[in-house]
């Protein structure tokens, strides 16, 4: 028994002693906290597909930077924050329809495929895995300085969201009333989309451009299901994201054939679906029992 415990303890020390694991944990924890928090507002504001659109932009921005020989992260942040802010300027004129949005972003993605080819064929330093790393993340590949930069940016995102949280919440729930009370609804929405852009770029470094939607939507969706109180839900979304990321990293460490981004997404999806099923069943049970009709009606 003690021997087993010691073995587990040794395994844990070994795991957390690895520099790549430490870097992944430092960056991942902060990125997950920011993603959960931003995701909470995305779900609240029905802007989940903004993140989807930004994921395409993240891919193209990162590969354009590589193709032109600049730091990948520069292209990533410029593209996502820029497009996020641009979408913020379009917002008040009403939502563009699916076909327009989908076509524009499909073309952006096609452009990304072009940059990928340019990068992998023309740069002698280019490696074939760059595209895959951008699309699906390579959190174990972060260097110490990259990890700390990512962590610092993530903390910045959390701070900015924290500052605008109250007016953002107000204007998300009832834009008209907030506007009447003198909340700068447009400005807040604009700032928020810029933050979403930065967060998308961060999440790309953790789980990749194609999967960032899962990291933003799954913990937030689960938190929205579990509680109706905003502050609790925000904290819960971040906590869930961090927990899911840790679980994913550990899983992937123990099962090396499982890439970390898959493990993170698998845990996040499982938690979200589990929460959906449990609350559904509980909601139905409550609806059937006549004692708490008010609770059931509120659902």
């Amino acid at each position, binding site marked *: 028994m003690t021997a087993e415990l010691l073995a587990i303890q040794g395994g844990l020390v070994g795991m957390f002693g690895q520099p790549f694991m430490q870097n992944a944990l430092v960056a991942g924890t902060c990125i997950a906290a920011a993603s959960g928090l931003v995701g909470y507002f995305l779900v609240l504001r029905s802007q989940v597909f903004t993140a989807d659109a930004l994921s395409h932009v993240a891919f193209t921005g990162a590969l354009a930077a590589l193709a032109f020989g600049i730091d990948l992260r520069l292209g990533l942040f410029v593209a996502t924050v820029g497009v996020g802010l641009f979408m913020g300027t379009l917002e008040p004129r009403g939502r563009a329809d699916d076909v327009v949005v*989908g076509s524009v972003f499909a*073309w952006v993605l096609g452009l990304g495929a072009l940059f990928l080819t340019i990068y992998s064929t023309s740069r002698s330093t280019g490696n074939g895995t760059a*595209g895959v790393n951008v*699309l699906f993340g390579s959190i174990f590949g972060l260097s110490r300085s990259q990890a700390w930069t990512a962590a610092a940016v993530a903390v910045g995102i959390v701070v900015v969201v924290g500052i605008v949280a109250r007016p953002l919440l107000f204007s998300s729930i009832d834009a008209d009333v907030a506007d009447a009370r003198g909340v700068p609804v447009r400005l807040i929405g604009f700032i928020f989309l810029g933050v979403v852009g930065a967060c998308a770029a961060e999440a790309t470094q953790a789980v990749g451009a*194609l999967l960032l*939607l899962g990291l933003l939507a799954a913990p937030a969706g689960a938190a*929205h299901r579990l509680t109706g109180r905003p502050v609790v839900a925000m904290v819960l979304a971040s906590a869930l994201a961090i927990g899911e990321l840790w679980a994913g990293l550990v899983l992937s460490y123990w099962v090396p*054939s499982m890439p970390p981004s898959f493990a993170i997404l698998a845990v996040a999806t499982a938690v979200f679906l589990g929460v959906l099923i449990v609350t559904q069943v509980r909601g139905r049970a409550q609806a059937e029992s006549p004692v708490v009709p008010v609770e059931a009606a509120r659902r």
Partner: protein
Amino acid sequence: MLVAGAASPSLTGNLVEDVRQLFVYPFMVNAFRAGTIVAVLAGVIGWFMVLRKQSFAGHTLAVVGFPGAAGATLLGIGALYGYFTFCVAAAVGIALLPSARGRGFSEENAITGTIGAFFLACGFLFISLYKGFLDGVNSLLFGSFLGITNQQVVVLAVVAAVGLGAMALMGRPLLFASIDADVAQARSVPVRALGVAFLILLGLAAAEASQITGSLLVFALLVMPPATAQRLTTRPASSLALTVGIGLLVTWLGLAAAYYSPYPIGFWVTTFAFAAYLLSHLAGAGLVRRRAPVVAPSVGRADVPSRVDR
């Protein structure tokens, strides 16, 4: 983009010679055959999809096809069969799933987004299990026209024939149900059954389109040609024909450009399709401006405001 050892093709400026060069290699002939089949099916089904405002369903189905293709490659079966299996299974799943009403649109989006990301992650898992496949991932996501076998062309053709046959049978009631579901229901058109059947056909079309454009760029063949055609004309028959025409043109141009350049087919096809779409917007705006004074008295007509808005 070319197979090793083949002489690098270059444009001669002589159109006849360039077109002849395109068909020198059997793989290119097969690529054109496959592209033509796919463009026709994707055009016809995409036309109805855009009309029914289901373009994100098409996108989701294609995304789900990616792990199917990656898994099929892992198992050593052709990617094409993986696309078909997963796209059609996903279509059945979406059709059978009770729509999450009551909790609101926002949560449904969160669920759709999460599941889409999860399927992509599964595809990534299969790819990393299949070592040395990193180049293949790009062709699964962004399309490829290399290595399409005769047998695959036959499979594509048979599936397309089945899909088009089904569309021929259900086209009229589906059009009715798509334009006004309530009236169609009242006239005892089986609206729900048609919807399910159409989703399955959409799965087939998304799978076929993935073969050329890759999982992520199916919009290029499924959405952009019909959206372009529907902006140019509102008459169903002519816009359907126009859709297929645009789809074919875009595919052929894309194949030729990819053959003569080092850049991937997915990029070319999306770029040509997007250019056509942009041109139709410009042309549409021009038409509205010219017609504006004539139309003005009958602003109450349903189709006018939507055009002026844009």
